[in-house]
């Protein structure tokens, strides 16, 4: 049974440390004139994206190519899904072509688990519905570590639509595993129906949380939330929970501002705030390739074949 990365919880603190430590080496590879190593030569990494996402898919693809792996991409359009083409058939057909790792992204929670039960190759969760996005959480941990040295005892505020955010769920698991204290800040309609069992605090007062935060992690607010009776309007959201210029002034000098991208400038973050030095959003993207290289290497390269 080959190893897969489905949930950040599977890694635990030790696993996350291991990924970050190996990521350092891959950052160095990325800085070379020829940013490539032969570590995964002869391996095939396939992206199966049922949900459009240029950024994540390209990041995985770059990571695989820099490890000298062969890459295939399947972006499944809405129409194939509507025709009812069986997920299981698709995945088993791809596996039959010879695949070492399958990166799966889908708008439905749980799909990577279902896929992992149907194939023998490694499965990497590239984002499943509202549930998890493990590699995002890993690159976020890594970015914080590079900027602040360690996550132990850091106070992290995750702001925004937590209820529908796979980034938030994975980050809560990862940040708390690494010793950070997490506070969720959102209107009650955008928090999960219950936080029972979540190792976090919650607040509806962003102004109160910001001055004490070492990291402010902003989540993207989708316009559709307005139509689902979760918010009266985007304006009201920004007034209560947006990182406006005024609010940016409440931040500590060394506080980090993070966002998984793409940013809705003017909604969860003011345009001018996005360009401040405290915003490490572009570093997140850059680190994403190194971290995904580390994940691919650890799953396919560093362990003996099953």
């Amino acid at each position, binding site marked *: 049974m080959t190893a897969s990365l489905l949930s950040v919880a599977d890694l635990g603190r030790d696993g996350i440390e291991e990924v970050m430590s190996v990521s350092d080496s891959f950052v160095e590879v990325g800085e070379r004139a020829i940013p490539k190593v032969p570590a995964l030569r002869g391996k095939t990494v396939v992206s199966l994206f049922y949900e459009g996402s240029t950024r994540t898919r390209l990041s995985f693809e770059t990571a695989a190519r820099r490890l000298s792996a062969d890459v295939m991409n399947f972006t499944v359009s809405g129409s194939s899904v509507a025709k*009812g083409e*069986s*997920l*299981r058939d698709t995945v088993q057909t791809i596996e039959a072509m010879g695949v070492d790792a399958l990166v799966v992204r*889908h708008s*439905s*929670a*749980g*799909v990577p*688990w*279902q896929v992992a039960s149907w194939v023998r190759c490694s499965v990497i969760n590239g984002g*499943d*519905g*509202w*549930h*998890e996005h493990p590699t995002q959480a890993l690159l976020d941990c890594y970015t914080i570590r590079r900027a602040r040295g360690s996550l132990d005892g850091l106070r992290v505020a995750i702001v925004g639509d937590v209820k529908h955010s*796979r980034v938030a*769920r994975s980050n809560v698991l990862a940040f708390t595993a690494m010793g950070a204290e997490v506070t969720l800040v959102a209107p009650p309609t955008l928090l*999960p*129906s*219950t*936080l*029972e*069992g*979540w190792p976090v605090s919650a607040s509806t007062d962003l102004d109160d949380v910001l001055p004490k935060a070492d990291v402010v992690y902003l989540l993207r607010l989708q316009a559709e939330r307005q139509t689902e009776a979760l918010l009266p309007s985007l304006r009201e959201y920004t007034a209560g929970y947006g990182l406006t210029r005024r609010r940016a002034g409440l931040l500590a000098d060394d506080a980090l501002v993070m966002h998984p991208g793409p940013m809705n400038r003017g909604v969860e973050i003011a345009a001018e705030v996005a360009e401040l030095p405290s915003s490490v959003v572009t570093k997140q993207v850059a680190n994403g390739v190194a971290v995904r290289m580390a994940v691919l290497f650890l799953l396919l390269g560093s362990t003996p074949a099953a």
Partner: protein
Amino acid sequence: MAGDVLLRGGRVVDATGGRRADVLVRDGRVASVEAGIEAPGGVTVLDAGGCVVAPGLVDLHAHLRQPGREEAETVETGARAAALGGYTAVVAMPNTEPAIDSAGVVREVLELGERAPCHVLVAGAITKGRRGEELAPLAEMAGLGVRLFTDDGRGVQDARLMLRALEYASSLGATLAQHCEDESLAAGGHMHEGEWSSRLGLAGVPPEAEQLMVMRDIALARRTAALGARVHFQHLSTAASVALVRAAKSEGVPVTAEVTPHHLSLTDEVVGSYDPVFKVSPPLRPMADVEAVRAGLADGTVDAIATDHAPHAQEEKERPFDHAPPGMLGLETALAVALTDAGLPLERLLALMSWQPARIARLEPAHGGPVAEGRPANLCVIDPAAVWLVEPERLASRSRNTPYAGRKLTGRVRHTLLGGEPVVVDGEPQR
């Protein structure tokens, strides 16, 4: 068609009590019930040693999928599964394609059931097409013997329409069964809204969606009680619902209620595997609700265990969780699951699975009635100690979506007699 049968060596249990006795069946009826019957010539002897001989089980709630979804189940395969589960009568739900909302479709299903190894009754829809807008021709269907009406799969959302349906049905001596789910609350949900749905990132259904309709229909039942209207609550799953029914009964409101075996034995935690086999409506609930439902069975608040047998083709249950249809198989595992997980003795379970549902379906005394001379021989022989492994491929149902796959259960039906004919012998279907 029935030959003579002797059920030897068992313990007879029915509403009158239990006693060691053999049962002789002649011409489709019970001929004699006493210890040490000598086998007359030409009689088929079926061993009932170590077993309980009881009136056949009656399921108030099964989806036989015909007409329209024959790839998942047919009346024949569903009836065979029922017989293997010890059932001699099963009520077929009307959410077929087309819906059973007229005499024509009722007749079609009754005809399909004529040759089946289990007595098939038909529940008619309350509204045309189950759309919840206009009353279906209830009298026309009642004319063919239909006494139970439901829009199951959905509840009747409009209060006024439900009130009119109750008033009208009261003149037909019929019972309206309700799938209690307020769609304005439940829409978009795929599992119980709670700790697990929050963790798993799946949209949840607040339990109030069930509770609100139970509350409403108790009020409407109270109002129409004097007319003789009867309300039966299907698959109750929450502590709040059970409490409401308990209070209503103590006031004398004429309501009855059923629960499914899976709501007695599984919690929402199992959804953590994201296997759509665990997706069902109403959804699996947390332990507190499971315990409340079990308590409702124990104290008489809940009248029956009904399977809500809901077959789905494999491809359907392999879709992503939020796209898969809800529903689990139940006919072949119900008794064993109830014995293993309900925390009740077999005698009490038989009341809940045989004579009490028979009364609600108006099938007494042919089904569920005491095992006594002269009565139709609709019987099951149960080995309460038999341990067996649930293997989906070996079930008689056409579908495989059982949440108990790979589990060892205790309690198995050895023989089933339908009108005196052995339709199941030693756990094997005879037709």
